[in-house]
């Protein structure tokens, strides 16, 4: 039976790899593959082939006492992860199978143990790839890199078995009438008991805890060393220390010495999992159905639907039946974006921003806190201009799977394009105006002293004016890409995996940056021209807002042209060709 499961796993991987290689014949995957390959070579494999990077590789060469501390910290982290598996979940045990696997394997004469073996076998592929990637990230395969690979493999294999075993144990507890909350309380009580034992021991054997004595990181480290590497903590964390010890081994001898106990823990986990007699089939069928729905949603481009079941949301404003039709799309997409994007929330945020800047000014006085916060707000604002479009996707990127329905609407294509862009543009503008108020308020003192308060306010006015137009332009780039290269775009959203898909994402990001810069050049040139001319005649305070208005006009023309172009692209977007492909 196991041989059949091996066969299935082997051929699934082989066919997937062959398919990936074959699809490199398509230019979009070939170019993506080249760019992705260069990216991986540059960041990871270069070190593997012996060309060291500028930075120092991640290596641990601690003293024996430090090694014990690191081991304890690793064990503590593992304890937290394992506790989460016991506390957070509330569902019954369900093994993740695809619908095809459910259809073929569940009615087949394969016992539960066989299905568990199949699941374990399949998870090993992902564990091995993760172990290799993490080794590359943490210093590559030079020197003792293989120890890290093996260490990661042991760590993730045990973690995987523990998650599976704990899901079975939770189901058994539910079957015996112990509710999720009773289980959680029990585990928390056990945790408190263990922590209590450690605290009591520390109070009895160590000097009284005094925060004032912990003046530098070495003091904290010494204290942690005392608590974790002696007394009850040492024994309570012992099984978990065995799991992380191979990864932290400094040489081959130490690794093999640590390997035996770690493998014993692994085998005990395996025994626990395969001996658990828990019915997981029904929950697995349900889980596979949900998985299939998610996959279908991702493949159809409806990434949002794949993430979670949408919740009922209030309308952001009352939509009257008569008026510009594009507003209907704004209204619809704001509902999709969520409750946070309503006028009431934005007004509240603006009031909060004003109060916060005044409050911070009074509390911090002349310290550097206020300008530092102002700089952070400015950086967030700049970042949101460049990256914000990736987070707010309530536009064509969301509606493309329903493009056929949009095309039946009695609307001009530019109206559709405008309506689709308005919601993310409005939401982004709201966020950026909020940050702008913070920037203006928090940097008021140094900026007003240097430029004069009139110029500073003029800059604020100019920024407020151009921000929505810049958002309209930046949003057009990913939308146009989605309409021009739907297959690329869907892959770029996470519909696939692999080096070529990473390459596609990189190309997409670079393209977006390039178009943004090109769109800014005419507006920046006009801003500079008007600014210097008006400054000579009327001074800086008048020059800044006037130059901003001139720049805003150029950006508005660019945005309008872009909307028409986007509409034209949508008109040419052949629904049947895309769905057929």
């Amino acid at each position, binding site marked *: 039976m196991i041989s059949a499961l091996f066969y299935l796993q082997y051929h699934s991987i082989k066919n997937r790899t062959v398919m990936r290689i074959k699809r490199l014949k398509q230019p979009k995957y070939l170019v993506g593959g080249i760019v992705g390959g260069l990216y991986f070579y540059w960041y990871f494999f270069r070190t593997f082939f012996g060309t060291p990077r500028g930075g120092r590789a991640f290596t641990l060469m601690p003293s024996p006492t430090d090694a014990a501390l690191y081991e304890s910290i690793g064990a503590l982290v593992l304890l937290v992860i394992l506790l989460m598996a016991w506390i957070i979940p509330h569902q019954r045990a369900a093994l993740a199978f695809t619908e095809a696997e459910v259809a073929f394997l569940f009615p087949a004469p394969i016992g539960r143990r066989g299905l568990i073996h199949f699941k374990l076998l399949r998870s090993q592929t992902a564990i091995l790839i993760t172990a290799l990637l993490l080794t590359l990230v943490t210093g590559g395969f030079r020197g003792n890199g293989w120890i890290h690979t093996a260490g990661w493999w042991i760590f993730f294999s045990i973690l995987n078995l523990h998650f599976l075993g704990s899901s079975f144990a939770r189901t058994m507890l539910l079957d015996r009438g112990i509710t999720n909350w009773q289980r959680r309380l029990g585990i928390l009580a056990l945790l408190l008991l263990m922590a209590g034992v450690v605290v009591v021991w520390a109070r009895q054997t160590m000097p009284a805890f005094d925060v004032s004595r912990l003046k530098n990181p070495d003091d904290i480290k010494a204290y942690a060393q005392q608590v974790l590497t002696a007394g009850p903590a040492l024994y309570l964390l012992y099984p978990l220390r065995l799991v992380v010890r191979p990864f932290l081994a400094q040489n081959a001898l130490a690794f093999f010495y640590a390997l035996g106990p770690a493998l014993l823990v692994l085998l005990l986990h395996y025994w626990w999992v395969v001996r658990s007699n828990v019915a997981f089939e029904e929950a697995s069928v349900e889980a596979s159905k949900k998985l299939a729905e998610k996959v279908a949603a991702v493949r159809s481009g409806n990434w949002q639907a794949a993430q979670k079941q949408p919740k009922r949301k209030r309308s952001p404003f009352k939509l*009257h*039946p008569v008026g510009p039709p594009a507003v209907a799309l704004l209204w*619809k997409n704001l509902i999709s974006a969520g409750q946070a994007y309503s006028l009431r929330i934005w007004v509240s945020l603006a009031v909060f921003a004003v109060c916060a800047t005044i409050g911070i000014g009074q509390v911090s006085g002349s310290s550097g806190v206020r300008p530092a916060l102002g700089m952070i707000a400015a950086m967030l604002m700049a970042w949101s201009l460049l990256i914000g479009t990736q987070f707010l996707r309530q536009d064509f990127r969301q509606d493309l799977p329903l493009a056929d329905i949009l095309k039946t609407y*009695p609307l001009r294509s530019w109206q559709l394009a405008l309506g689709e862009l308005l919601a993310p543009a409005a939401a982004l503008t709201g966020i950026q105006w909020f940050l702008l108020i913070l920037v203006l308020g928090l940097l008021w003192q140094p900026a007003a002293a240097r430029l004069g308060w009139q110029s500073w306010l003029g800059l604020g006015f100019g920024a407020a004016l151009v921000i929505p137009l810049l958002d309209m332009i930046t949003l057009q780039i990913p939308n146009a890409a989605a309409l021009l290269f739907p297959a690329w775009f869907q892959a770029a959203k996470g519909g696939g995996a692999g080096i070529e898909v990473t390459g596609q994402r990189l190309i997409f990001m670079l393209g977006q940056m390039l178009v943004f810069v090109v769109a800014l050049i005419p507006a920046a040139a006009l801003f500079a021209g008007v600014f210097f001319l008006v400054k000579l005649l009327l001074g800086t305070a008048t020059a800044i807002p006037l130059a901003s208005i001139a720049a805003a006009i150029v950006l508005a023309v660019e945005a309008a042209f872009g909307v028409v172009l986007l509409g034209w692209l949508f008109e040419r977007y052949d*629904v049947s060709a895309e769905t057929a492909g």
Partner: protein
Amino acid sequence: MIQVEALTKLYGEFVAVNELGFEVKPGEVMGLVGPNGAGKTTTLRCLSGIIPPTRGSIHICGHDLAQDPIAAKQELAFFSDEPRLFDYLTVEQHLAFVARIYQVKDYEPVADQLLEELEIASKRTALPGELSRGMKQKLAIACGLLHAPKVIYFDEPLTGLDPIGIRRMKDSILKRASEGTAIIISSHLLHLVEEICSHILILKDGRKIAHGTLAEISQQFAAQSGETNLEEVFFRATSEAGKQSE
């Protein structure tokens, strides 16, 4: 109401619809039938403005779909085989949205009546994810009928409906036709087409191989055997067309 002349749709060199011409008058129900890949869905998509035809003209209530798409689309409704809804809009939000898109002034009484008629009035605040397939279909129909279209296209209208839903759908189609709406139904269910369609158009490989009332088509293809059953006529018509093309 619907006038189609020399409609042709090419995908590269593949001819999906070839020189198709027909007319559907007010109150007529035309059944569009044909084997898989005959071009039925492509034809309906061209007729509703979802995809542009490569050649030919389509007039909806006198408006050229290519030259005056807004006026033409204002008069039509298209119901695909799968109800196509926005996951995040409730039933009543769907109706409010569609009312604004089609500029339906005072839509609320009409929407209420449609929801009552379609028996989904109790689901006003439900999201599509909370509705059964039949309910979703009803919501899609309510949205499509809100602007009182004069032309309606159905692509496999009975898919996924239970026996009661099927009966209601047939009644609804006939009621709209009796009110003067021109209707086209694309379906593989020949007994449905035979039952409710006044006219039939048989397509094969994108070409029209028969068009007329059932009696006219029967006369053309089943004269020797005297059969008037659409199924028999369909097989004869499509096999004869196959022989001719060979």
